[in-house]
């Protein structure tokens, strides 16, 4: 008797969960492979003469940036435009944030325009979740505090896969200021998801305790890696008195990524912006084995894929693209 349910309840279609990209931890391996596949499809459109696709025509993408950004904000904006979405860019300076408006109130205000996607970068962990709670938009995290930067991790996976032909079984060494790096946190989870072994290398105070990955202070181990991923030394965090390291000079001497510390042909990545001569030797940054510009190019197609994926919830087929082009 207890199992009888009203027929109407069964017939009502279930509300599909709103799709966000807030943390790599929310993704499965299948999700990652679908996103990378979609990005490859979009990449194939990049060398056409007319680069714009009508796929997201009529959709509104709001870029809400509470921290400075060049590559992330520009690539999200271009990704949305390439897909024919309308875009609105809000920066914290020069907006009501300057007047002390809370994140919740700003989100409610923007929510009143019914945006389809809000791309948010914020200095505080959990800001994307708050915006997801108070608006109806799909949320894409473009960096929250030191927590997550999921599109960076995805574009890095994409870059590695394009260049090395695979992901599974590779070994990546991440070098530098892991403590303050949201890129490192997203990468650790993303590498785990796709079967990449990951080693974190840096000075003791910049390696968080109980990080779920191998950690070492020995820069020598980077020679064993297939890819050396160099993190930016965040100079604003290295002020005198912080004493994470005695000086940037000493950091460079002991943990800087130089040609001498690499094997010939070893691939090098960096999320940017770089401090040449601090964490990375200019010779390394400019060498043919550096994938840094490829990363930027990957950023565009991966962000196109992310916008497409959260809004449509499925893989993009070549056929679907072609049909869209006709329309």
């Amino acid at each position: 008797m207890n199992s009888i349910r009203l027929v109407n309840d069964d017939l009502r279609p279930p509300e599909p969960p709103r799709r966000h990209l807030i943390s790599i931890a929310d993704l499965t391996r299948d999700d990652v492979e679908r996103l990378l596949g979609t990005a490859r499809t979009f990449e194939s459109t990049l060398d056409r003469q007319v680069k714009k696709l009508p796929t997201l025509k009529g959709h509104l993408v709001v870029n809400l940036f509470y921290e400075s950004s060049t590559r992330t904000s520009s690539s999200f904006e271009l990704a949305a435009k390439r897909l024919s979405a309308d875009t609105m860019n809000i920066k914290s300076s020069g907006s009501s944030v300057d007047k002390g408006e809370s994140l919740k109130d700003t989100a409610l205000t923007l929510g009143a325009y019914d945006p389809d996607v809000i791309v948010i970068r914020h200095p505080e962990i959990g800001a994307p979740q708050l915006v997801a709670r108070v608006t109806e938009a799909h949320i894409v995290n473009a960096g929250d505090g030191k927590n997550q930067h999921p599109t960076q991790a995805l574009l890095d996976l994409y870059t590695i896969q394009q260049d090395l032909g695979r992901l599974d079984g590779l070994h990546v060494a991440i070098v530098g200021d892991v403590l303050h790096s949201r890129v490192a946190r997203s990468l650790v989870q993303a590498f785990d998801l796709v079967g990449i072994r990951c080693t974190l290398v840096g000075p003791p105070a910049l390696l968080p305790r109980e990080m779920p990955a191998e950690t070492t202070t020995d820069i020598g181990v980077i020679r064993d890696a297939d890819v050396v991923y160099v993190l930016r030394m965040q100079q604003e965090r290295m002020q005198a008195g912080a004493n994470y390291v005695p000086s940037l000079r000493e950091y460079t001497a002991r943990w800087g990524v130089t040609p001498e510390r690499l094997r010939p042909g070893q691939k090098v990545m960096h999320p940017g912006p770089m401090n040449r001569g601090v964490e990375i030797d200019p010779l390394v940054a400019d060498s043919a084995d550096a994938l840094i510009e490829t990363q930027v190019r990957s950023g565009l197609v991966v962000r196109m894929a992310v916008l497409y994926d959260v809004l449509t919830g499925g893989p993009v087929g070549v056929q679907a693209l072609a049909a869209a082009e006709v329309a």
Partner: protein
Amino acid sequence: MLWIKERPGDDLVVRGARVVDPAQGIDAVLDVRVDKGTIAAVAETVDANGHRVVDGAGLVLAPAFVDPHVHLRTPGREDEETLASGTAAAAAGGYCAILAMPNTDPIVDSAATLGSLADTAKREAEVHVGFLAAITRGQGGDELTEMGELADAGAVAFSDDGVPVVSAGMMRRALQYASTTGRPLALHCEERTLSKGGHVHEGRVAAEFGFAGYPSVAESLMVERDLSLAAYEEQPIHLLHLSAAESVAALRRARGAGVRASGEVTPHHLCLTDDAVRSLDPNVKMNPPLRAERDRTALLDALRDGTIEAIATDHAPHARYEKDVPFEAAPFGVTGLETAFAVLYTRLVATGALPLATLLERMSAGPARIFGLDAPRIAAGAPANLVLLDLEREWRVEEGGFRSRSQNSWLLGESLTGKVALTVAGGAVVHEG
């Protein structure tokens, strides 16, 4: 000194409840009669004498609870809590007495401020309320408060809660001078050069999410310093809201060596670990932070064996808009008065982790003993301070259900077992649930 609103004592009979008063070794089904607010008879059967009779069958009657650590936000933030709302919340939680911390605005560091609070309490307090005064002026850590005058004005103890007494030299002077007042120091132990900027326990969750860590050693190092000073000066200290296994170990060692030190633990540190922070819910953000499972277990062991004598809610009301922000931007603190017994019963007693008698003792006689208060007890001649508990009743913690002016509970939406059916404080029925 404690204050409560003047009220005539009630006449009441609680019939057939299981009377549990651990401090007196009572655990039996008995009748209790209260005449004009004083317990008149405790026996297998008592005459009703025409009093109102409450059927206690299947319920537990215990000495009402004492909370040694609440924030009533008055003066200064009456939008968050007042003496009236905070003591009503206490009554709903089964408390007959609560002690309020002095980190208000202005800070309770003068007899004048304390006197005005006492006047308000005499008008508004539903249950007994006592006040701690600051150790240093403005809790600035530089100058001692006039502890003698504050004690004469009724300060129960001294505390700079919310901030540590940074200087060891100042702490020593405070211990020396407080001895002339007979009042203990209640200490918030935090070495701020280690905890600075930290939002959550420095462990797995902080590493994964990128939170600045607030390590255990930031607490235990200061605990060790203050225990050493207390031992040297031979003065009593009380350690507030302990959170770390190392702090507990230090307290146990010091007590073993004869130091007059006591400790308290909150319901949230007994029930949660930093795993809860994965939700990013600002209502699991508190100082000290939720720590690892080994810390939680150590706190529970210490509560069981009496190293920790008191459960304190550290009831810390915050306005909704202050908590409706990303985790790192939110203030520390959660409410607790109205849920403390129910959550501890549900999560610890009903699961067999803690005997009921121990919980009742640590919520009543234990904290009273530390602060030199008359412990509530169930005995003829004692003032009636009673709580009647329905251990079977399930209820849901809901935003609309609080007497407190604030709703920043970590238990919103949770179902709990065990409800306060009746609270008697100062001889009067102050809550029926």
